[in-house]
């Protein structure tokens, strides 16, 4: 669903169109849920975030003047996920959360999937990869959502893909 179609759907939702809401949910549930999950790594929190995003969209959809509703919706999901992570780990600073790498599984003989490989990335890199590939956002939009320079986004993305490529090929984990 491109931005034009999204704007149409949001206008319809503003007029109480439940079918448009369901279509919007069907289209965006997977990327939003995946992004929430890749930030929180928690099914329950991700479901809560997904619910929160869509309830907000239904009750107060963004104004039709917003040029990029897709980025707006992902911004909302990103902020809620970061808030959720903050609540879960109050004793850890946000910077530590964003930069901390998830530890790989101890038992290397287990069959590993891309999800496990993604868990080895620092949260920020994992988020950029997910927003770009699954959320289909442009680097510039990701840069605005995450409030980091465009160059950093591109650099971290390249770095993350190289790492994942290495891991999947069997280079390290």
């Amino acid at each position: 669903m491109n931005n034009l179609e999204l704007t149409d759907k949001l206008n319809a939702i503003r007029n109480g169109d439940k079918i448009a809401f369901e279509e919007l949910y069907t289209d965006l549930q997977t990327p939003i849920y995946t992004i929430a999950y890749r930030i929180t790594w928690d099914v329950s929190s991700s479901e809560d975030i997904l619910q929160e995003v869509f309830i907000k969209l239904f009750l107060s959809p963004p104004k039709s003047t917003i040029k990029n509703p897709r980025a707006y919706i992902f911004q909302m999901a990103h902020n809620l996920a970061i808030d959720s992570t903050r609540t879960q780990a109050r004793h850890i600073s946000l910077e530590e959360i964003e930069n901390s790498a998830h530890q790989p599984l101890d038992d290397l003989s287990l069959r590993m999937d891309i999800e496990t490989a993604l868990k080895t990335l620092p949260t920020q890199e994992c988020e950029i990869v997910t927003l770009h590939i699954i959320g289909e956002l442009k680097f510039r939009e990701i840069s605005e959502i995450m409030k980091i320079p465009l160059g950093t986004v591109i650099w971290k993305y390249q770095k993350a893909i190289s790492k994942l490529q290495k891991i999947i090929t069997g280079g390290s984990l």
Partner: protein
Amino acid sequence: MKKVAFVLVIIMLVGMSMTTYAQGEPEADVFATDRPTPVENADPITDANISFTEDVNIHRLSDGETGRGTIDTPDKYWATNGYPDNISFAYEAGGEMLENGTSVAYWEIGIVNADEASKNEILDLLSPNCLITFRDCTYSYKQREAAFNEIYASRDAIVRDVQMLLNSEVVFVEIADGYEKEYARKYVEQYGAFVVVTNDIAAADDAIAAGGLDKGGNNPFDFWFFPICLFLLVGMVTVIFFNRNRFIPVMQTNNGNVITGSTPISRKQTVSAIKNSAITPSNDVFNSIVKRVDDLRK
């Protein structure tokens, strides 16, 4: 256990040999590959009249022209097949993953007396994965290499070190204090303005970018010794690692496709695997949303 001990002793011996070799070759620094632009801050010490200036070097001709041939890495291609007379340098200055999942590498290629024909020749050689920026240069790779080899062979108490860059048309020479102007004049007259004299090549290193080239000399033994040692060391460590861990790198994507460690995975396949790893929430979530919305509206 005895086998492991034996292998460890060999590793130690190889390691010691490599250390000794490295100590005997003071110019064997390897430049980092992610440093910023070269030369601009290098502050070469030369006579003003004959010093290297940026005017001599790197005039940008074009931005991001796509290749039409098959070669992905021109630097390796030319290193193997010999640099053409009109090429000064070729280096990879970054890259990008495009929206369609294709990766593109940015190549900076210096051409001597560049014209459309020589640009087209390169575009025909390089693959569409290369986005090429051409730069107009004065000195060819071969010319610089010849100068490098001669200066390298003439190293003594005054001519301490020499390094040739792969990302610009510069050859740095470290000269002892007090002799800089004399040697700068001599080298420029003898070779051309691409020879830049400094009295501290290590300081210049900090300003040298991606493609700093270290040439360890012309002795074939020197050339092969380090890679052979490294190869043996890596091989032994790999054997030990796999034996000890009984690790078989087999992975499975979320779609159930099994990928073995022996299969090289491209960036495109990696991106595709990530795309396929998207997670769909349970159906209950939507029902829950609708219920909550209805509750809130009441």
